C-alpha cells in the first residue's frame, strides 16, 4: 500500500513536471511562431503568350512562400471557385442575399469566384484573396498582383494592395516576381519575407571523402559550389555584414581557418596561430574580430579571439577541457555561447567576451552542442541528446535567461547544426532521417518542414539575410 502511494506520488509529480514543461514549451514556441495562422486563397495566376511557360513556377513559388511563412495558411486549391478574378475590374459586388423562402435556409449568394464572398464562404473560408495574372510586356515578364480582404463587402475598401512587378523573361525572373509578391503579402501581416536570404552549407556531393562549401537560396534553388580544394572544408560562419565567409579546412593538412570574401570570392589573409588545430571560426557582432578554437597551448582546444586577419591573438577560455564553437550574441555583442567538455560530456556554456562569467546553460544531461543565437539575442537553438542515446541529436531551443527549453525535432534521425532564418521564425538544420544527411527548414513550432537538398550529404547550414 505504502509502495503504491509513493508510486502515485512520483507519478503525480512527474505528470506535473511534464505539464509544466509542455506549458513552457508552448510559451516559448508560441512567442516565436506567432500562433494560429489565418487562411488565404491563392488562385493560380494565368498567363498568355510568352509568359505562359512561367506561370507554373510562379504559382508554386508564391504558394510555397506563403505556406512556409507560417503567418498565413493557404487554403487548399481544390475548393476554389472555377472563375477567379484576374484583375480588380473583374470583381463584382456581393449580391444581397435573396430573401429565404418560408422554412428554407437563406441561399448564399454565389458568383462563381468573382465576388469576394465566394472566397469568404464555405468551402474555401479564406480571410484573404490574392490574385492576378502574368503577361509579357516589352520583353519583360510582368506580374500584376492583388490582395483583398474577403470579409469586407465594399470592393474599394477590401483592397489591401495592387502592384505591378517586373523581371526578366526567365524561370529565375518568374521566381523573383513570386518572391516579391509573396513578400508584399506577408508584409501586410508584419511578416518578414525570406526571399533573397541565402543558406551556406557543406556538401560531399563532389566526391566521397571530400567536403566543399556551397551556397543556395533559402528555398533550395540556385545551389552553387564555393570552394574547390578536393579536401574537407567545413564548419562555415558568415560575418554580420554578410561579406566574409570563415571556415575550417584540411586543404593544407592540419585543420586550419580560411576566410573568403563573398564579394570577390577570393581568399582573404588570415594568419593561423602555430597550432595543430585552428577551427570553428565565427565573427564578433561588429565583424572586427574572429573567435575560434585552437590548440595553441599545445594541450587542449580552447577559445581564442583574433583580429579578422589573424593577428592579435588573445585567449578567452582557460580550462583543461575541449572547448569549441564560440558564438557571439548578435544583439549585445558581449555574451559568448560555446561548447565545453569541462564537466564531462559536452554541454553548452555562456561567458563574457573577456572570458569571465562562465556559466553552464544546458542541465548536464546527455550531450549538447551547435549553439546558434536567435537574431533577438535572447534565445538559442542547439542540438541535444537529452532523452536519447549518444549520437541521436535533436534540435532544441532555449530561452537563455530563464533556461526554458523546447524540443523541436522528435527523434527522426540525427538532427544537427540549427541556424535561424533572418525572420527569427524559421530554422534550417541537417538531418539524416531520409538515410543521408540533407538540409531541412521548418517553422519554429516544427511545422512547415521542407527538404531543401537532395544530392550527396549536406550539413552545417548557416542562414543569412
Amino acid at each position, binding site marked *: 500500500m505504502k509502495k503504491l502511494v509513493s508510486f502515485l506520488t512520483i507519478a503525480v509529480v512527474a505528470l506535473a513536471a511534464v505539464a509544466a514543461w509542455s506549458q513552457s514549451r508552448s510559451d516559448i514556441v508560441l512567442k516565436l511562431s506567432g500562433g494560429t495562422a489565418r487562411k488565404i486563397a491563392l488562385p493560380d495566376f494565368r498567363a498568355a503568350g510568352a509568359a505562359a511557360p512561367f506561370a507554373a513556377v510562379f504559382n508554386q513559388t508564391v504558394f510555397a512562400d506563403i505556406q512556409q511563412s507560417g503567418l498565413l495558411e493557404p487554403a487548399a486549391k481544390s475548393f476554389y471557385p472555377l472563375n477567379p478574378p484576374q484583375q480588380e475590374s473583374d470583381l463584382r459586388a456581393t449580391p444581397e442575399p435573396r430573401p429565404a423562402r418560408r422554412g428554407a435556409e437563406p441561399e448564399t449568394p454565389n458568383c462563381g469566384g468573382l465576388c469576394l464572398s465566394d472566397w469568404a464562404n464555405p468551402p474555401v473560408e479564406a480571410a484573404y484573396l490574392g490574385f492576378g495574372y502574368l503577361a509579357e510586356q516589352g520583353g519583360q515578364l510582368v506580374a500584376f498582383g492583388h490582395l483583398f480582404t474577403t470579409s469586407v463587402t465594399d470592393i474599394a475598401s477590401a483592397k489591401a494592395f495592387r502592384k505591378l512587378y517586373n523581371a526578366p523573361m526567365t524561370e529565375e525572373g518568374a521566381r523573383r516576381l513570386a518572391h516579391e509578391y509573396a513578400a508584399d503579402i506577408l508584409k501586410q501581416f508584419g511578416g518578414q519575407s525570406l526571399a533573397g536570404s541565402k543558406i551556406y552549407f557543406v556538401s560531399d556531393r563532389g566526391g566521397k*571523402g571530400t*567536403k566543399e562549401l556551397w551556397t543556395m537560396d533559402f528555398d533550395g534553388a540556385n545551389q552553387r559550389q564555393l570552394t574547390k580544394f578536393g579536401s*574537407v572544408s*567545413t*564548419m562555415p560562419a558568415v560575418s554580420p555584414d554578410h561579406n566574409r565567409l570563415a571556415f*575550417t579546412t*584540411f586543404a593544407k*593538412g*592540419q*585543420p586550419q581557418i580560411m576566410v573568403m570574401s563573398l564579394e570577390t570570392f577570393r581568399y582573404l589573409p588570415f594568419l593561423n596561430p602555430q597550432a*595543430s*588545430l585552428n*577551427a*570553428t571560426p565565427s565573427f564578433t557582432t561588429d565583424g572586427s574580430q574572429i573567435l575560434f*578554437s585552437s*590548440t595553441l597551448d*599545445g*594541450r*587542449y*582546444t580552447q577559445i581564442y579571439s583574433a583580429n579578422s586577419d589573424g593577428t592579435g591573438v588573445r585567449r578567452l577560455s582557460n580550462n583543461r577541457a*575541449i*572547448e*569549441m*564553437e564560440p558564438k557571439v550574441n548578435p544583439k549585445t555583442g558581449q555574451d559568448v555561447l560555446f*561548447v565545453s*567538455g569541462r564537466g564531462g*560530456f*559536452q554541454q553548452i556554456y555562456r561567458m563574457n567576451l573577456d572570458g569571465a562569467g562562465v556559466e553552464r546553460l544546458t542541465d548536464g544531461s546527455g*550531450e549538447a*552542442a*551547435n549553439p546558434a543565437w536567435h537574431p533577438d539575442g535572447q534565445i538559442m537553438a542547439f*542540438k541535444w541528446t537529452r532523452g536519447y542515446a*549518444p*549520437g541521436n*541529436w535533436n534540435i532544441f531551443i532555449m530561452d537563455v535567461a530563464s533556461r526554458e527549453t523546447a524540443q523541436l525535432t522528435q527523434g527522426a534521425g540525427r538532427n*544537427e547544426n540549427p541556424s535561424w532564418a533572418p525572420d527569427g521564425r524559421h530554422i534550417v538544420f541537417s538531418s539524416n532521417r531520409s538515410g543521408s544527411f540533407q538540409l531541412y527548414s521548418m517553422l519554429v513550432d516544427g511545422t512547415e518542414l521542407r527538404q531543401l537538398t537532395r544530392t550527396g550529404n549536406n*550539413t*552545417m547550414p548557416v542562414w543569412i539575410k
Partner: protein
Amino acid sequence: MKQGTVATLVLMGGLVLFAAGCKKKPPVTSAPPPPPVTGTTGRGPAAVINSFTAEPSTIVRGESSTLRWSVANATEVTIDNGIGTVPATGSRQVNPAQTATYRMTAKGSGGDAIAAVTVAVTTPPPPPPPKAAPKASLDERMRTAVQDVFFDYDKSEVREDARATLQRNADAIKGIFNDFPSAVISLEGHCDERGSAEYNLGLGDRRSTSVREFLIQLGVPEQRLKPISYGKERPFCTEATERCYQENRRVHFVGVQ
C-alpha cells in the same frame, strides 16, 4: 587557237604526272610473277592462279594465319613449306615459327603458274621486368611494425591495453627514424560518428596529443611526431555499430618522408 593548244598540253602533262603518280604506288598484295609461257600451241589451257593470299600477313609468334587461294585450269596445285598437294581452291591455317614464304606451283596442261606469299612473324614483346627487389618501404615498415591504438567514447586517455602497444610502437618508431632520417610520423586522431563534428575535432587532437606525449616519454624525438586531428571526417568504418564506433576511435600512425 594557240591558247587551246597550250591548255591541251598542260592537261596532257597533268595526266602524265597523274599516271606516273599511280604507278609509284606499291601493289596491295605482292603480285605474282607473270606465268612463264612456254610452247602453248596445241596443248590445253595454261594454269592461272587467280589469287593466293595470307590473312593476316603479319602475325605474332604463336598466332596463326590463313592462306587462301584460287587456281584455274590446273592439273595439280602444290604449296611448299610442308603443305604439299592441295585442291584448286581452298584455304589452310598455318602457324610458322618464323617469317616464311609459301610458294604455290600450279601445273596445267598448257603451262605452269607460280605464286608466293610471305607470312611475317614478329616476336612477342618481352615480359615486364620483375618488381623491384622488395626493400621495406617506410609505409611497409609502418604497417608491419607500428599498430594503431584505440580509445573509449569521449575519452583521450591512453587505455591500459594501449600502453603495451605504444611501448612496442616507440621501439619500432625509433628504428624507423634511424633508417629513414628525414621521416616524420603523423599521429592521426579519429573519433566515432556519434559525437559532434566540431567537438570531435578537439577530441581527435586530444587523442593524438596524448599518444604523442606518451611516445615522447619513451624517448621518441618530439619534433618528428606531428599530431593531426581528423575528428570524424575520415572514418575507417561507416556502419552504426559498436564494433565500428570502436574501430573509429583511434590514433592512426602514418609515416611521411
